[in-house]
């Protein structure tokens, strides 16, 4: 784990990178990294995020300008700007069920090729997917999802990179921290090793590549 500034962290992310961003409707999102993605005017990003948040909040900031080329997520209904960009064909959006979204990322982080889920069988979601019967019940084969970068927001991070999360800001963060080549973390508080008891570590330090300095 290496400590960096937000500017240095985002400078590592090239245009057109696949970027996973934690958070649910902008709660538990590394806001400073998103501000910096906008400031450094990154473009062509493939955004993997549950939702498009709201304009000006969380990943919603990326839809104020033209930073995203495509998105994989579950819901963009509360960000009119993301909807406009989708309907105007400036971006492509792959909308998938939320349970499938998180399991594909979990599979990507856990060395699995994918998962079998009953969700989406008999709906538009099954189009183009392999259907597999197990014990007489149909499932869809949903393949693993990984990214070049995961941008994660924790509540506490210690100097060793161990992370814990707070309340509903946990959401996709621990799962995404497993599923990218490079993991960049912001935290509300950076604390000495030992402040997070081993039993309370949710994301172990070795998963974290870069911790963004506070202040």
């Amino acid at each position, binding site marked *: 784990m290496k400590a960096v500034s937000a500017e240095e962290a985002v400078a590592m992310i090239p245009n057109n990178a696949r970027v996973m961003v934690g958070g*649910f*409707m902008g709660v538990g999102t590394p806001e400073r990294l998103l501000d910096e993605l906008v400031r450094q005017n990154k473009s062509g990003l493939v955004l993997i995020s*549950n939702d498009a948040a709201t304009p000006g909040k969380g990943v919603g900031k990326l839809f104020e300008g033209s930073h995203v080329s495509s998105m994989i997520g579950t819901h963009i*209904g*509360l960000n009119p700007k993301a909807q406009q960009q989708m309907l105007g064909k400036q971006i492509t959006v792959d909308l998938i*069920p939320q*349970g499938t979204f998180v399991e594909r990322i979990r599979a990507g982080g856990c060395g699995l090729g994918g998962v079998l889920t009953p969700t989406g069988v008999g*709906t538009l979601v099954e189009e183009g997917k392999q259907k597999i019967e197990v014990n007489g019940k149909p499932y869809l084969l949903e393949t693993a999802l990984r990214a070049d970068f995961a941008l994660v927001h924790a509540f506490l991070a210690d100097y060793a990179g161990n992370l814990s*999360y707070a309340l*509903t800001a946990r959401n996709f963060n621990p799962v995404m921290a497993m599923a990218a080549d490079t993991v960049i973390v912001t935290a509300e508080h950076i604390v000495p090793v030992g402040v997070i008891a081993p039993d309370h570590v949710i994301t172990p330090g070795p998963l974290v590549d870069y911790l963004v300095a506070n202040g």
Partner: protein
Amino acid sequence: MDAQTIIARRVAKELRPGNLVNLGIGIPTLVANYVPAELKVFFQSENGLIGTGPIPEQGMTHPLLTDAGGKPISALPGAAIFDSAMSFGLIRGGHVDITVLGGLQVDAAGHLANWMIPGKMVPGMGGAMDLVSGAKRVIVAMQHAAKGKSKIVARCNLPLTSARAVDLVVTDLAVIAFPGGNATLLETAPGLTVAEVLAVTDAELTIPDAVPEMIL
């Protein structure tokens, strides 16, 4: 009593002590207002919480404690927090006793469409498909008609949320179940006759010998 209150009060009667319940946004959210505290129902919020409580008083909210719409909520004593994989494991894995969702259409076989209107409204399905696939019991809470058109239709022409039939539909006019895959009128809203409900329902309904009024 307005339409939404009728629906929310009637759905609340379906909840049993100790149930783990997921409420969707819109009318389903209102159901929590009519559940007596002594019932000890647990409400799940799909963004990673069991034990959601009411909207906190002003100044008592926390920016990291929100519902699935991103709005501030509270957590009750005994609440539990978990990540999204766990949250949807609970949902898909059959650990949620009841899910209450809004609907655009429900058809005579109990199929629900509630996530898109092609070409018009494409917000995404969020958690709806997993909830309908995995919850033990699926209840749809919606107005009986929209813009004068019945939402209880012979066959959904909007994209389905799941191939699984829902268990119960509660509208401002009626309660409908699907025993044997046939839409069956169980109750009418207070003051309404069976004939009045049938007159504003597109789907063919099976009518049992006795159709009582809803008790709210």
